[in-house]
């Protein structure tokens, strides 16, 4: 399956969904006005990916900031990974800058709410 790569802008994150390299990354800032529209191609891609996923999927969230509209879409990605983990190996990393209590507590929040293990990584 072809990788989905979306370059970052000043209000949307960089997206890398690359099964060949087992590289799944969401990084930088996510504060689009219309989060549903931005995340739509990501969910379309993921829905195809789930038909023939890697043995191991390693998904790394490396966000500096996200707005509430994006929070809901990130929750949906995590729920997707939770589902994928039923029959496949899934590793979720939540990376945050040292001193960034905000992103750290978001990671902690998701780790409590999602039934797939989320490793918090200080970078």
């Amino acid at each position, binding site marked *: 399956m072809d990788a989905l790569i979306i370059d970052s802008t*000043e*209000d949307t994150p960089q997206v890398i969904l690359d099964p060949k390299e087992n590289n799944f990354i969401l990084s930088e800032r996510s*504060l*689009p*006005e*219309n*989060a*549903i*529209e931005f995340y739509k191609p990501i969910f379309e891609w993921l829905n195809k990916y789930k038909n023939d996923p890697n043995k191991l999927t390693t998904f790394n969230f490396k966000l500096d*900031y996200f*707005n*509430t*509209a994006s*929070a*809901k879409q990130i*929750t*949906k990605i995590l729920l997707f990974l939770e589902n994928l983990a039923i029959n496949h190996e899934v590793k979720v990393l939540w990376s945050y800058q040292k*001193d*960034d*209590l*905000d992103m750290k507590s978001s990671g902690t*929040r998701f780790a409590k*709410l999602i039934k797939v293990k989320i490793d918090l990584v200080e970078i």
Partner: protein
Amino acid sequence: MSSITGDLDYALELFRDMQRENLSYIYRGIFSQKITDNILSLAEGNLTNVGESSTVKKRVFSIMVEGLQNITRHQDENLINEKDRTGIFVIQRKGDNYFITTGNLIDKNHITKLTGQLNKINSLEKDELKKYYKEVLNETEISKKGGAGLGLIEMARKSGNKLAFDFTEVTDTYSFFYLHLEISRSKDDARKDTDKEVNESLKSIKGLHKILNKENILLIFNGIFNQDSLINLLTIIEGHMSTKINLRKRVFNIMVEMLQNIVKHAGKGTVESGNPGIFFISEKNNLYLLNTGNYVLNSKVEELRKKIDYVNELNETDLNNFYNKSLFNFEIDSSKESGLGLIEIRLKSQNKLKYTISKVDEQFSFFALQTGVN
């Protein structure tokens, strides 16, 4: 969680004053290159959003560039930490005219020379001004701070009007120099005098500046809100805040949610350009007060009231639980609404939200919201 002591009445007063104008935009503080660039694109974007003609836009833009360069050139790194000594930039649209005001500290020793230059420029007619520009360009050695008055001549030429100016004493050595320009939107070749009206308008800016200093207001934006203006405003405030990362991020967070509320929910706007509203931010002893004001439909007022009152009543644990619950409530999940904005604002500010809603007419009310972050 504590309660904040911000003065919402004062905020409302400011809203009311500014509502009469279609656009006004004030920045007060340090003028870095990045901040200056964003001030320019924010103003430019808004000229476009209010449907200004390209001729007027160009003239306003070039005067803004010269004015901002004047401030950055004369900005003294040693003095800008004092709140009454930071530069100020103001653009307003009143009826058929734009007004641009710049203010910066200058050494008192330069007042006589500067006054001479300004009076000379004001005494010249259009053609003479063009000639004078060439003269100055050829004769004077360019000082290391650039200029030699060329910027002033350029501004006078572009505005088509005389330059209003004033000095206010700040210390024994320094004065504050105000430069105030009027740009007519209608075609009018004759240069107007710095008449009573312009001087009155400069006087009102000086009065406003006093209040801004007292309240330590960093920025006021009264204009059209869309995603572009939001990004510009964020970048300006980010550049301004040298405070520690967590406070900065919380201010950033709240600002995004408050401004996107205007972008998505406010009334009286258009889909193409955005919604009218006002935003201003002040800082005192590391307490940041963020204020927004916008129109809401009368039919939505009750629902809005209920939502805010509800999140205000919750303690931190309940707020977190409510946030989590809303995060998984996919019944509310559209391009307009995630159901999380107000909860997030309340959580991140750790203070109760202050608001007022006042009826404007049969269709709309004015909604003012204030959040304190410390």
